[in-house]
């Protein structure tokens, strides 16, 4: 029982940045923009978050800077894809390479060569008064950190915005038929640009989660593919914030189980299998989930000649 609680606590803990990243991705993809720069955004978030927190000594300032960094990279991505009509997938690749070079380079510029790791104190967990006393669930869900709680709160908010407000209607319409949005007198490019910026901000925070909530340090391999998992979760969650939450937790659990089995040190099952588990899961789930409703113009350029 205790072991299970620990495992699930870890699962929820690890699912937070995935959900956060996927939420941003949902918002952007609803407008037709795949934020393929997600790896780069996560990475620069982790980088900026750490540097901000280390230098200022204030972890929240770190998150703010991470958000700003993610936003900047997203702005670069949106500028080139939305306003300069470059291809989304291609641009994402270019940005991933650029950001990885940038972060490593400037980490050294800022800190020089260190022989012991620079660290910050990670964001402490915070038990929510009453709720954390609920048996089982209390320990798993209500004894996490602030960012995790914010993520939980963000899910219904994003859901509400997307499905119940005029802004959401505009967002969704941009992904379905941008010409119609244009004809209705709205600025498609601005909407897309804004949505990508939001995705970038959330992605930046998600990245910072790894450096500021998880390990309290920055390394160039800190993201290693997790941004893509968030990207996949957005697909699997059917471009729905609730779906993103559910699949984010599914992946948190799968990662936790993978770790659990690996930690048992069984030599009979190859541990590589568990390392590959999240990726295999994405493949299987994408193939199996037939009812996916892709935004009609996801990934397509919107060329407007006037």
């Amino acid at each position, binding site marked *: 029982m205790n072991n299970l609680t620990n495992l699930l606590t870890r699962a929820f803990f690890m699912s937070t940045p995935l959900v956060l990243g996927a939420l941003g991705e949902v918002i952007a993809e609803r407008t037709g923009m795949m934020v393929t720069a997600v790896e780069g955004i996560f990475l620069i978030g982790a980088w900026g978050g750490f540097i901000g927190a280390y230098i200022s000594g204030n972890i929240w300032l770190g998150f703010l800077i991470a958000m700003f960094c993610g936003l900047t990279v997203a702005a670069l991505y949106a500028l080139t894809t939305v306003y300069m009509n470059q291809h989304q997938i291609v641009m994402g690749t270019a940005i991933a390479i650029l950001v990885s070079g940038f972060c490593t380079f400037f980490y050294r510029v800022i800190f020089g060569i260190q022989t012991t790791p620079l660290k910050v104190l990670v964001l402490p967990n915070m038990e929510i008064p009453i709720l954390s006393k609920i048996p089982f669930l209390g320990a798993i869900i209500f004894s996490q950190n602030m960012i995790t709680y914010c993520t939980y709160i963000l899910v219904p908010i994003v859901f509400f915005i997307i499905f119940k407000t005029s802004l959401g209607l505009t967002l969704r319409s941009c992904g379905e038929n941008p010409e119609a949005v244009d004809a209705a007198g709205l600025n498609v490019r601005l909407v897309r640009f804004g949505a990508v910026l939001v995705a970038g901000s959330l992605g930046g925070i998600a990245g910072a989660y790894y450096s500021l909530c998880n390990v309290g*340090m920055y390394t160039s391999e800190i993201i290693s593919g997790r941004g893509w998992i968030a990207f996949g979760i957005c697909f699997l969650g059917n471009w729905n914030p609730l779906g993103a939450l559910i699949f984010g937790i599914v992946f948190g659990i799968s990662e936790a189980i993978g770790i659990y089995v690996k930690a048992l040190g069984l030599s009979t099952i190859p541990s590589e299998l568990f390392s590959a588990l999240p990726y295999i899961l994405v493949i299987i789930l994408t193939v199996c989930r037939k009812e996916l409703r892709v935004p009609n113009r996801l990934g397509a350029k919107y060329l407007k000649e006037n």
Partner: protein
Amino acid sequence: KESKAEAQESVKEGDNSDYAGMKIVLILPGSIDDQSWNASNNAGAKQCDKELGTKIEVVESVPVEEFEQTFTEYGEKGYDLVMSAGSQFDEACAAVAPQYPKTVYTVINGTKSDSENMVPVFPKEYEGSYIAGIIAGYTTKNGNFATMGGESNLAMVHLLDTYEAAAVEVAKSRGIADAKANRSFLNTWTDVSIGKAMTSQMIDNGADTVFCYSNEATSGAIQATAEKKAKFVGFAANKNTESDCVVGSVDMAWANVYPWIIKGIKSGELKGAQEVGVKEGVFETILTDQCSDECKAAVEKATEDITAGKLDLKQYFSN
């Protein structure tokens, strides 16, 4: 310690200009700020520069696919000594070295010496880890050890073997009859998150003393150990300052060995495959106050025994 003294002597003698004229390069597979293997080798090079007045060029983050090219490049440029740190350089070195007989190739952690000019230096990591195991044995309360390695290569397996053997033996001698070690591999050297998650899982599974040998990922392991209020034994670098949960570290003090290598090569005394270990001063044990006197004594004794060749550590190897 001996070599240090010698070095200082030679500085006094003022023949360091000789060393300054040597063209030496150190090739590292990872980033020099990885806080582990690469960092400590870089420190070795810096030590030489300071001690001997050499000007060692350090080339970092050389990807696997460029090993051969890089060795060739410095052979072509007529370097006197091409050093590289990591057994993964062995094969590439063997392929290139015979073509440039005037250049000496040294692979730290390597074992292969096919030609005259190949002088691999192999640190007997399993000796150092045995000592680390003793520290762990005195640290544990419940006799449950967690051991982790970056990937499962033979040297890694051997050093974990001796570590576990020492730890369990000591724990049993302290009356913890069911002492046991649990081992797993991270499959990554660099991913801090995985290091952290694995460690906390292993502590959840009952371990109270943790050992992790990988690069950046080690920091994740220490982090988790601190959070879960367990204890950590550092290896390959001095981890004591990183967190209070580190009870002691067995540092690989390349700073002691590098000058020795360079001097040996300069004088032509160093030939063929070299093995260095506790005796040569590669390992420096740094204990914190958390270690009991009993522990300190045991560590000292083991160090002496190994130096004297009284302990057969190979008996513990699982294969």
